[in-house]
């Protein structure tokens, strides 16, 4: 973190953004008018263990981390089986997993308005160290989570490790990759979108072919707040996902499916009336916040500032992007298309001018060796050479060339900052040199883009599909395609980055082993992928 921005740039930025965007939209009443009807902690016994959805932590700062849980004794019932009133929840943070040395503790309020989620921004912690946390209510004790604060500002750090994960469609298979991710010793998990998919789920649970039928209320697509909450509850019913949260702090961003497939700004996939889609987006954003270890304030309405920055001493800075909320509608009807005027229209936005400026200004001020961009959709040019014609994904940065060009120009100027873009979306592992001119393989490499495959989306997958081979054949900057399920571990030292691509051979049943399918190294100060 840059010293002048210390201690909490993300929080300050959040406040400012909230004023300018949400405040202009409408005034909001906060409550639903129920909490006051009962005294907090009314002595109604809960109908079971309320910690069915596990615990989580995230957004680590040098002195703080957010710890999270959501009370849901009956996660698929209305209100998660909770009484319709606010309840107090105790929390503790300790320096040891047995809680012999509790360093912070307190009480938080779980409210129906936020689906009884608890987000405690635990302050006053020491930098760069592990902590353990847990919650308690009515004699029920939560699982113990482990988390880690970021190193101190300006501190020289010898080594950091991040996992990059995305795309976890629940009916597409088991989260075996998360089980292995939970066993990694990483400083944080960067989850770059598609935490849930909004689609209805059949009784058999897709590829999971569950013994117990998925309840009837999951058949319809998630489109209202209650229904998005159900979707998160089902996803978090997977013990491997809970384990991955339990072991390390997460730094997340969303892509499209947290709201709707390939939505853009306030444009829904089917161009529903904006009035209606605004409401849907507001409900979806609220549900996302409720289920992620994010700081308060919660979204109040259809806008939410999600892009933010984390600094890990002098070694790394992580810039978390949001390229969904501010983008123009996809060009030429979306999908993969040859070059077209809409794609190149300079008036169309993607990250938006404000976010671009924030990103490039921040990277320019960074004093960290490695500057990561937690990014949703592929940023580098990617040509699916369909029928001999260059063809691009209208939903990716390629579909918005004006902003893509501005950002790549900006990153070229920041080449010395070692830009590392980590990406999700495509359910395939890619490794790419980002070129000054993608049409010229000999042009300067300005950074690298590491695309993690999906945790589960797409089912078992294959090593390289026909399309995957097509990409390899027509994109010389692309050094790896693998379409098995898994994640990337990015290890950083002051001299080198090591990217280990991990994958499992199947997910239609549990228990698959993990293996490292490819490793790359990047030298600090000399962007570009090298075999490792």
């Amino acid at each position, binding site marked *: 973190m840059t010293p002048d921005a210390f201690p909490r740039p993300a929080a300050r930025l959040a*406040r400012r953004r*909230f*004023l*300018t965007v*949400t405040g202009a939209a*409408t*005034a*909001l*009443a*906060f*409550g*639903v*008018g*129920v*909490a*006051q009807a009962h*005294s*907090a902690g009314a002595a109604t016994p809960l109908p079971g263990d309320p910690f069915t959805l596990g615990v989580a932590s995230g957004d680590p700062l040098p002195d703080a981390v957010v710890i999270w849980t959501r009370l849901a004794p009956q996660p698929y019932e*209305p*209100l998660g089986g909770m009484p319709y009133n606010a309840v*107090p929840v105790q929390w503790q943070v300790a320096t040891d997993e047995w809680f012999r040395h509790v360093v912070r503790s*307190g*009480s*938080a*309020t779980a*409210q*129906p*308005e*936020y689906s009884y989620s*608890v987000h*405690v*921004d635990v*302050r006053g912690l020491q930098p760069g160290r592990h902590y353990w946390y847990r919650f308690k209510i009515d004699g029920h004790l939560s699982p113990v989570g482990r988390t880690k604060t970021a190193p101190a500002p300006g501190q020289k750090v010898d080594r950091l490790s991040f996992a990059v994960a995305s795309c976890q469609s629940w*009916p*597409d298979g088991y989260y075996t990759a998360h089980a292995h991710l939970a066993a990694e010793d990483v400083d944080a998990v960067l989850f770059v979108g598609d935490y849930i998919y909004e689609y*209805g789920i*059949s009784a*058999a*649970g*897709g*590829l999971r072919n569950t013994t117990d*039928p998925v309840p*009837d*209320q999951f*058949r*319809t697509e998630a489109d*209202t*707040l*209650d229904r998005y*909450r159900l979707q998160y509850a089902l996803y978090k019913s997977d013990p491997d996902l809970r384990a991955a949260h339990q072991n390390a702090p997460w730094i997340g961003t969303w892509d499209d499916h947290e709201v709707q497939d390939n939505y853009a700004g306030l444009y829904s996939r089917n161009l529903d009336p904006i009035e209606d889609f*605004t*409401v849907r987006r507001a*409900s979806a954003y*609220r549900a996302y916040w409720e289920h992620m270890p994010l700081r*308060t*304030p*919660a979204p109040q309405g*259809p806008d939410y500032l999600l892009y933010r920055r984390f600094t890990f001493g002098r070694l790394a800075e992580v810039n978390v992007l949001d390229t969904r909320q501010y983008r123009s509608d996809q060009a030429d009807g979306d999908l993969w298309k040859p070059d077209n005027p809409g794609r190149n229209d300079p008036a169309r936005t993607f990250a938006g001018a404000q976010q671009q400026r924030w990103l490039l200004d921040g990277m320019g001020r960074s004093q960290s060796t490695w500057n990561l961009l937690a990014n949703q959709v592929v940023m580098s040019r990617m040509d699916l050479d369909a029928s001999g014609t260059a063809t691009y994904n209208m939903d990716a940065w390629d579909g918005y060339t004006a902003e893509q060009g501005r950002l790549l120009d900006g990153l070229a100027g920041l080449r010395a900052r070692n830009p590392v873009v980590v990406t999700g979306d495509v359910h395939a592992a890619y490794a790419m040199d980002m070129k000054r001119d993608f049409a010229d393989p000999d042009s300067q490499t300005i950074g690298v883009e590491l695309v993690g495959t999906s945790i589960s989306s797409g*089912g*078992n997958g294959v090593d390289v599909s026909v399309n995957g081979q097509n990409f390899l054949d027509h994109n010389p900057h692309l050094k790896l395609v693998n379409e098995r399920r898994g994640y990337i571990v990015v290890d950083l030292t002051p001299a080198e980055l090591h990217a280990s691509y991990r994958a499992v051979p199947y997910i239609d049943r549990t228990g698959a082993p993990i293996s490292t399918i490819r490793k790359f190294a990047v030298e600090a100060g000399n962007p570009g992928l090298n075999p490792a």
Partner: protein
Amino acid sequence: MPILSSTAVGALVRALRRTGPAGAPRRRTLAVIAAVVMLVTLGGVAPALAAVPGKAAPAQQLTLGSDVDHVTVDPVPCAVQGFQLRFGNAGSSAVYADAFIDAPAPLTVSRSLVSSYLPSGYTLKVQIAVGAPRSTPPGTYTITVHAGDQQLSLPVQVEPAPVNDTGNLVRYMPVSASSENLPNYPACGAVDGDRDSTHWGTTTGWNDATKGTFPDWLQVSFDQPVPVGRVDLYTLDSAKYPAAGYGLSAWDVELQVGGSWQTVAQVRGNTAGEVSSTFAAQTATALRVVTLGSNEGVTYSRVVELEAYTS
């Protein structure tokens, strides 16, 4: 947008600390933070603080309505019936609100809770499916919706169960599948009496949701054991999507007899739109088609209609 001064925010925080849960001031609760933010959003016009226990909330002005004045229900699986709930906010401020939907047993509703962000003046429209098992006595029932101090009562007329005079044993029986490509390709579409492939993609046929994976399965469970000696399967076969290009190429027909599954017919190398499998009739509690391949390659299973007969 007026911005509240930090002094005012500080005063509010102090006030909230006095009313908030006991604990060190550093340990801010959700209630405190969120309430402060709300105040900022409102530009300093302090609302009542619903988030803080003990404080009065502003009364919400919610509205409830429906698109019909009563719902007619056929007590069979797969019936498409229900109502559109209209959940509105007549107040001057946006709210997040909950509407609870109660249906008397044995009626079922697709959602028993609708929660949403509701801007001022906005009415959310949500389709609520209403179902009833075959054994439901015909008559009038009442679904109740309540939100805040609002309540809506909606009469439901349950009709007598339809009589199946087609000889097709799967009509009006519960159907399930390994996966369903929702909302346009539900398993129900395979037992709806519509064999017409030109209706493909309009909920009249089943398409699984696991592209690239076989086998898939489609299953009908009978209300009571029935003798089954013939199964007719109509796979996708239209001018646009001929069976030889898009239909199923291979499947097994299985019957559940005495609690265990038995394969009674196997179809291989099929390119036709309609295949009738006959076999010695057995008394079965369920029928299952296990799909093994498509003429399109390793993609999807597509069944327009599944029928079963005693002979």
